[in-house]
């Protein structure tokens, strides 16, 4: 067991994937130099400039090359430095990567990973701070996953690279310097399976990505007041583990959903709709969402903190359930 930063855990997973499979290669803007946030450091030294590449600032070409390489036998891992920039490549992500297999009647596989840095809490304003998972969970053909700890991102990224489908892996940039224990061997982390991060019988809190740690801290605070949260980290949003959520709500009868992205049209709405239909008889309280306010992320730290969700807001939302 080593103590690694989130960024180092990403690099470890990439290193393990490349060492295990010659078909895996990594590229993107500044990736060869170690990445703007250091998540690919050391890879070019170990694997050489053929398999670890810098690219021009060309998101459409970055994703399109991945599609072409994936469909012809490689397993590309491309980095989108900030997820906001994926907007420049939407045709390749949404119309090409996601659709090729289906349009070809199942005769193609597109095993590619897009590692997307997700901003927020960086004081980087509206074009460097968006969590856009809902856009992609909405598109059949894509898988979407994220992790909130170094150990989880290491295991999840390995699963994503081994997956035979296009997977977006969201890496919260605010976590990159946070350290945590990472086992010598990666735990199995199948996409589509939620992980229980805290057990409790009073309220189910479903979250993912950057909000996992704040939710767990809120759970500690609430436990001191005698409120026990059952915290599920979804890890994967497409596919997502509705069964685990329903099973938890069957015990707690209360559901709070917490995510970094704006509330309106966020993936929390999908979770709420599913539980509202399939778990209608289980619920003793309205489903609550704790998310970003429905505005772009502002620059000033005071404004950003007001807009983005927080540990304190999770505490307040749980308490409000009575």
């Amino acid at each position, binding site marked *: 067991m080593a103590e690694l930063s989130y960024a180092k855990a990403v690099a470890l997973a990439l290193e393990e994937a490349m060492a295990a499979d010659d078909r895996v290669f990594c590229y993107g803007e500044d990736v060869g130099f170690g990445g703007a946030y250091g998540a690919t450091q050391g890879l070019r030294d170990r694997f050489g400039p053929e398999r670890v590449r810098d690219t021009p600032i*060309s998101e*459409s070409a970055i994703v*399109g090359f991945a599609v072409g390489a994936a469909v012809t036998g490689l397993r590309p891992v491309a980095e989108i430095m900030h997820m906001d920039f994926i907007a420049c490549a939407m045709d390749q992500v949404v119309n090409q990567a996601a659709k090729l297999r289906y*349009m070809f*009647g*199942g005769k193609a596989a597109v095993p590619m990973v897009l590692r997307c840095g997700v901003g927020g809490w960086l004081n980087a304003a509206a074009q460097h701070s968006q969590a856009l998972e809902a856009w992609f969970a909405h598109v059949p*053909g894509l898988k979407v996953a994220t992790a909130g700890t170094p150990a989880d991102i290491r295991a999840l990224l390995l699963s994503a690279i081994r997956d035979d489908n296009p997977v977006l892996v969201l890496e919260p940039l605010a976590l990159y310097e946070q350290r945590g224990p990472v086992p010598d061997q990666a735990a199995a982390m199948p996409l589509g399976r939620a992980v229980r991060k805290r057990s409790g019988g009073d309220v189910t809190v479903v979250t993912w990505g950057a909000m996992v740690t704040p939710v767990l801290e809120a759970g500690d605070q609430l436990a001191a007041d005698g409120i026990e949260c059952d915290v599920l980290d979804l890890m994967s949003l497409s596919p997502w583990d509705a069964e685990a959520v329903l099973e938890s709500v069957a015990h707690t009868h209360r559901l709070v959903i917490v995510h970094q992205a704006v509330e309106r049209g966020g993936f929390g709405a999908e979770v709420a709709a599913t539980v509202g239909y*399939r778990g209608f008889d289980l619920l003793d309280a309205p489903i609550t969402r704790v998310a970003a306010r429905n505005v772009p992320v502002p620059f000033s730290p005071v404004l950003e903190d007001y807009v983005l969700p927080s540990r304190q807001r999770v505490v307040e939302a749980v308490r409000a359930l009575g």
Partner: protein
Amino acid sequence: MSMGADTLLGLYRQMVLVREAEETLVRLFAQNRMPGFIHSYIGEEATAVGVCSVLRTDDYLTSTHRGHGHILAKGGDLNLFFAELYGKAVGYCKGKGGSMHVADLDLGILGANGVVGGGIPIAAGAAFAARMQGLDRVAVSFMGDGATDIGSFHEALNLAALWDVPVIFVVENNGYADFIAQSAHQRIDRISDRAAAYGMPGQTVDGNDVLAVREAAGKAVARARDGGGPSLLECVTYRWRGHYEGDPQPYRNDDEVTAWKARDPLLRAKAALLESGALDEEAEQTIRQEVQALIASAVRFAEAAPAPEPADALADVYTDAVEEDWAWLS
């Protein structure tokens, strides 16, 4: 028969195949026997046939919404092709793709593409992968003149040049981007001029001269295969029919179309073959009849084939999961 005439005869037969298949499709579509929409390739046959004649089976191509000619010229199976356009389960894509998404991975056809410019970085990525895997395959990305205005064109050419990717970008300049004449959608006349901006060779050829296309494509392919990197080949041609079947074509006049029909790539090849003695009218008729019989057989195959089961729509999204039906239905 000289070597050249023999080659031209083979190319001519391929062009007849594309032409006859397209005329059949236009007729079937007009009779409402086929769903969707059809973008006819008639008039541009020399480009697909000339380029594909220098490709190996394991070379890749990406095609466009106007892609029937590319698929057939690369060796696409007529039965599977027609069955797909009829939306049948035995079609190339199980009826899930249709005219704009025909693909045959075994022939290196990475799909026709419904998004203008969508296939350009994909072809480059496939060619890049071939090089990474130590294979001497190349890729061709077919596109229209309109595609040279979209961002993916510029990004893909830049990166392909930077990484010496063995890809040939083939622009079929048929004069129009949808309804818009080339002079109204870009300031340049020769699209091959754009190659210089990315540090790769560019060449413009008469896209209705199948031997000229073949020669230029042959050089570009040999260059790419030998590690010389990408190139841009512009084939100047013309779309005889509208952007889509049913297009009222308010943007051009009959004189223009008539003038281009006089430059029919098939007539041109036929005249050369007749003059060389490699072909006579009787033999030409035999070729037509053989091709028509193949197409008629494929149409019968497609029409007789069963439709897909509706719930087949839920499969093939992912490699490892089938979408579940609505919970409230059960």
